[in-house]
């Protein structure tokens, strides 16, 4: 066996192993309405992907299929070696590994910030309380709000709440983070503080899929930008090519609408 072929197969193997999310010919319907059409997407470990597209294009629905908040009816989704099906065990396994940040934060209003962060580690991962609290404080420091730990979510600003939501997801030590329009519900001056946290997170090697219209963020962190319209992936490319040289008319139209005003 020659040296070069050996390297070649190894390269191929690591490529295969490196794919953490594999979506294969996936379709989804809401009743009669065909929302996702033939989605094919492979995400490598550590890859940062930004998904954009007009509203109603199915981008949120697609990432919500990855942790089974939405069911798909046809095709295959494999997350870190576990296929998503009606098997509740598999769904549990996947949800432990996949963190999600929502547009409207969805913090638990009756629990303090700290309790929000320790809830899942204690009840899902069975981490002892003290250990969970220590870890939560570390993550709250990382998102720069350790001093708010004993407040209730309702006492924080939108930006702070979203940073708590990010810390809460990180406390489960997920391998994959899904962001569903994390800055869309925020006042303009708070968007930056959330994006800063996300950029820092991206530099640490976690796999990220992010639905957002923050094109500056996409240019800074994305390895790949995906453009969706009408339930289909229309175009995917590196941010450089995507913004400088969009291939499809619809992409060009979309970019002209969000960039020139």
């Amino acid at each position: 066996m020659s040296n070069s072929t050996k390297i070649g197969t190894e390269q191929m193997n690591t490529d295969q192993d490196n794919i953490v999310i594999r979506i294969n010919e996936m379709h989804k319907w809401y009743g009669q309405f065909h929302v996702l059409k033939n989605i094919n997407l492979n995400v490598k470990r550590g890859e940062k992907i930004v998904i954009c597209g007009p509203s109603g294009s199915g981008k949120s629905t697609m990432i919500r299929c990855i942790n089974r908040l939405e069911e798909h009816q046809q095709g295959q989704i494999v997350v870190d070696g576990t296929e998503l099906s009606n098997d509740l065990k598999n769904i549990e396994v996947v949800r432990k590994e996949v963190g999600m940040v929502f547009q409207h934060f969805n913090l638990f209003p009756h629990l303090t910030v700290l309790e929000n962060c320790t809830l899942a580690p204690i009840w899902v991962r069975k981490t002892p309380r003290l250990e969970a609290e220590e870890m939560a404080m570390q993550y709250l420091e990382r998102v720069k709000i350790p001093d708010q730990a004993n407040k209730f979510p309702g006492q924080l600003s939108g930006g702070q709440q979203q940073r708590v939501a990010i810390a809460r997801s990180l406390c489960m030590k997920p391998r994959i983070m899904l962001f569903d329009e994390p800055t869309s519900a925020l006042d303009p001056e708070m968007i930056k503080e959330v994006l800063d946290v996300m950029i820092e997170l991206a530099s640490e090697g976690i796999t990220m899929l992010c639905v957002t219209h923050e094109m500056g963020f996409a240019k800074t962190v994305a390895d790949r930008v995906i453009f969706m319209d009408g339930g289909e992936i229309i175009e995917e490319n590196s941010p450089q090519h995507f913004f400088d040289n969009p291939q499809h008319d619809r992409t060009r139209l979309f970019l002209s609408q969000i960039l020139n005003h």
Partner: protein
Amino acid sequence: MNNENTSAMNASIKPDYTVGEHPDLPPPSNTVGTIAWVRENLLSSPANIIMTILSIYFLYKVLPPSLNWMFFDAAYVGEDRNACRAVANGACWAFISERFQLFTYGFYPIEHRWRVDLSFVLLVVAVIPILFDKTPYRKYGLIFAMVFPFIAGWLLTGGLGLAPVPTEKFGGFMLTLVVGITGIAFSLPLGILLALGRQSNLPIIKVFCVSFIEFIRGVPLITLLFVASTMLSYFLPPGTNFDLLLRVLIMVTLFSAGYMAEVIRGGLQAIPKGQFEASDAMGLKYWPSMRLIVLPQALKISIPGIVNTFIGLYKDTTLVIIIGLLDPLGIGRASLSDTKWTGLSNEVYLFVALFFFISCFGMSRYSLYLENKLQTEHRK
């Protein structure tokens, strides 16, 4: 010209503070204090002024005579009605004090009444840690509260070394408390389960819960009590002696649970979808997610409705009179037929009303306290 004008005006209202550093000033004196309160609440408009005057006139007409009848012209001791009448022309409270034991214990044997008293003391000990989360040694208090129903059941009915007392002897306030508290304690958990069952994805559970709730809501409590007292014995094998009070307790509990379920369902539906999604996304399973995230919020929203159902249940305990159990109202009615004390229905009903009012008002105040305590969001 115009320009000149504005600049002149600007000059005349030139601020005497640095812009951006305006000091905090106290509010004008006519917006705070007693005078402001009177103006705001009693005299804010012509209609309000008329209402205030009418109210004062009404109180003037009603309050002095009622107070006279109840306290100043009332007789507190006396052998019988005539003795009362001889000393005062107001209320005859001697009647109530003579019958007080009966009102409290019903026909519970006198030599065993300490068991009722002890149960009441233990009840207070059991309830305090449930109501107030700052109670010292709360953990042990809650454990005690779990075993309290068994201790109370044993103390009241006897057995295991205590002389047995048949439940037909129960009556008065003690009966109200037994039925009311048992109903309250068991209808809440049952109602929660029914509400969750009604929302369930499993068709069998859902159909069962829906039909149970709809049946309960479609039938008056009195009917259920009649079923409990008469018809159940047809369904049970002959010879089984199923205690009447126990049947009543079961019926009252089931009845309130049906209403409770609907109140809690309202609370469940008010929880935003995002809360369910967030707990799903974190990998929480159904029961932890309900217990830790959904129910605490849903129950908080439902507090007014839950307490409403509790109060309704508590007052409905008076219906047991229909099947021959003597609650305070029944005792009162029975006492009224005593020839020594004829015509004292005002005193009796006022006394019973006072007892119910204190209990129910207490519940209502506690629910307000709880709502305030659980308020973690800033209301705008």
